[in-house]
């Protein structure tokens, strides 16, 4: 008879059978006991306990990994419950990491999930260096850039243990991707920043003069009307009162132009830039990430090299390719980024250009040359002292070929740019 105990003992039988049958798998693979032990003992870090994170935690626990850590700064919202299946209504408001850990620990005996209810930035290199590999299920570019830059910074070719494989999953509606990043060996997250679609926006002239879509009316309300009425106070996209105001303003605009379809939830979606999350897309991408984790941990099969895109919004299409490293990648590259810019343009023009450059995505950049600041957005006294530089032309401030250093809140590292004045 199957008792509770031998159910648990048999839980990972399938995985162990796979690891015993060398004929099925990678030619370099040796079916030795150490591999099973490694899967049991390896510390795995899951970043994010949301839609992807729930799937990843479940998959890892059922694949034989026993020592799993999960980090997430978020608490559970009622809108998460349709797909983040480790959470229940009674959990709303609690930590995602803690709730997910408790659930998996109770459901899959023999697994120990350790939660970390904090930001990834609160942890230092000592923390990250404890793990054998790291799987990300994040919804933020900023967090991905940070963990990528941190892991690349840690990797020291002289000591193999410092190299932590990063498996990154991401979904957006019916689309998704899974990739394997071997810091300093393969292309890193930053190498592929130019693959991101531009932050969605509509041309200002359309919003202002010729709206055609409900989204145009909502953008008009939030971009043009809001500042006129509320001055410097920014709309709080989490405050129902502010959303209500935007909704009503957009609705009035829509009526004027005879446009249908402005709703409260569309307003919320447009101003918060929400793309609906689809549970099955998360399941597909998480499954792919966890298979890669198992393959890398056991060497039982060839791992993904290095980028798999999944497109489910136009029938079904997957494409796997080797994304190339960028030699001038600001994180893992060996040479500074080269840029040409007109010398008779001002520093302010240059800063505006940086903010609009899609592979930089900067918000409030600071610019320095050889350690000397040209412009700093803060602190106040320094900003005031340097503000006159904004009006000066680049020719006045620097020489062609100078290497400048850019920092920004969105960058976990700095950008080194060799600027050629033309």
């Amino acid at each position, binding site marked *: 008879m199957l008792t509770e105990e031998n159910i648990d003992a048999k839980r990972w039988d399938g995985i162990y059978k796979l690891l015993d049958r060398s004929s099925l798998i990678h030619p370099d693979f040796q079916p030795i006991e150490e591999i099973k032990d490694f899967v049991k003992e390896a510390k795995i870090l899951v970043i994010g306990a949301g839609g992807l994170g729930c799937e990843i935690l479940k998959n890892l626990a059922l694949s034989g990994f026993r020592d799993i850590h999960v980090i997430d700064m978020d608490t559970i919202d009622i809108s998460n419950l349709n797909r983040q299946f480790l959470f229940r209504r009674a959990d709303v408001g609690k930590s995602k990491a803690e709730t997910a850990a408790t659930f998996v620990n109770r459901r899959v005996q023999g697994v120990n999930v350790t939660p970390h209810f904090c930001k990834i930035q609160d942890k230092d290199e000592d923390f990250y260096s404890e793990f054998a590999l790291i799987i990300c299920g994040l919804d933020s570019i900023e967090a991905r850039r940070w963990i990528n830059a941190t892991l690349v910074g840690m990797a020291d070719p002289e000591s193999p243990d410092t190299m932590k494989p990063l498996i990154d999953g991401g979904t957006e509606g019916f689309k998704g991707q899974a990739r394997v990043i071997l810091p300093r*060996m393969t292309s890193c997250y930053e190498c592929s920043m130019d693959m991101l679609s531009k932050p969605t926006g509509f041309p200002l002239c359309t919003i202002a003069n010729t709206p055609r879509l409900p989204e145009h009316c909502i953008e008009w309300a939030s971009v043009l009307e809001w500042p006129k009425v509320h001055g410097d106070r920014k709309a709080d996209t989490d405050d129902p009162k502010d959303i209500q105001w935007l909704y009503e303003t957009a609705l009035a605009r829509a009526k004027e132009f005879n446009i249908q379809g402005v709703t409260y939830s569309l307003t919320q979606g447009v101003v918060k830039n929400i793309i609906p999350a689809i549970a099955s897309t998360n399941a597909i991408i998480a499954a792919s990430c966890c298979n890669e984790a198992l393959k890398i941990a056991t060497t039982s099969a060839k*791992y993904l090299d290095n980028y798999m895109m999944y497109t489910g919004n136009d029938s079904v299409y997957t494409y796997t390719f080797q994304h190339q490293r960028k030699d001038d990648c600001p994180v893992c590259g060996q040479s500074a980024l080269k840029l040409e810019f007109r010398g008779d343009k001002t520093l302010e023009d240059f800063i505006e250009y940086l903010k609009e450059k899609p592979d930089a995505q900067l918000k409030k*950049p600071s610019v*320095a040359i050889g350690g000397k600041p040209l412009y700093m957005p803060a602190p106040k006294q320094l900003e005031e002292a340097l503000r006159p530089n904004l009006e000066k032309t680049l020719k006045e401030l620097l020489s062609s070929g100078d290497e400048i250093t850019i920092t920004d809140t969105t960058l976990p590292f700095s950008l080194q740019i060799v600027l050629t004045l033309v």
Partner: protein
Amino acid sequence: MINIWSLKKANANVAQKKPKVSAAQIRVQKDLSELELPKTMKTHFPVAEDLLNFELEISPDEGFYAGGTFKFSFAVNGNYPHEPPKVKCQQKIYHPNIDNDGNICLNILREDWKPVLTLNSVMVGLQYLLLEPNADDPLNKSAAEDLRSNRKNFEINVRRSLGGGSVSGFQYDNVLTKK
């Protein structure tokens, strides 16, 4: 676990980055440009081109030290953020955790410093020290003793010292905020 380094030894062109500007300078540039200081704190850069040496003024709006303006010097060396910045109080003030030479006893400036901390963390820490002086970790032992034994008396001493008066025979600087 795969041994990735050895797998790729063949095409071992592993990237090593060598930036020309020091890591400390870049990090200070980043820390400073992301400061969000409350009204009670102001920075002063004697040389705007030098980000590594500057002053911070704190004018607490509550607590024992409200009404004073306190100047701290910051000196960041080339090992930042692996080493904390060197911070000193520029005035002689009567405070349990600051001695008469301006040395400061603040955990994150010494034993609890971590590279993830920023200049902002240090500034917030200093402000906290002015709001909540800590008698358990004294640098000025008699001030700490005063705070522990008689808070009322300690408060009177602070008031006197802020105006440039002396406490226990030692004369302090006048640090009252100039209107």
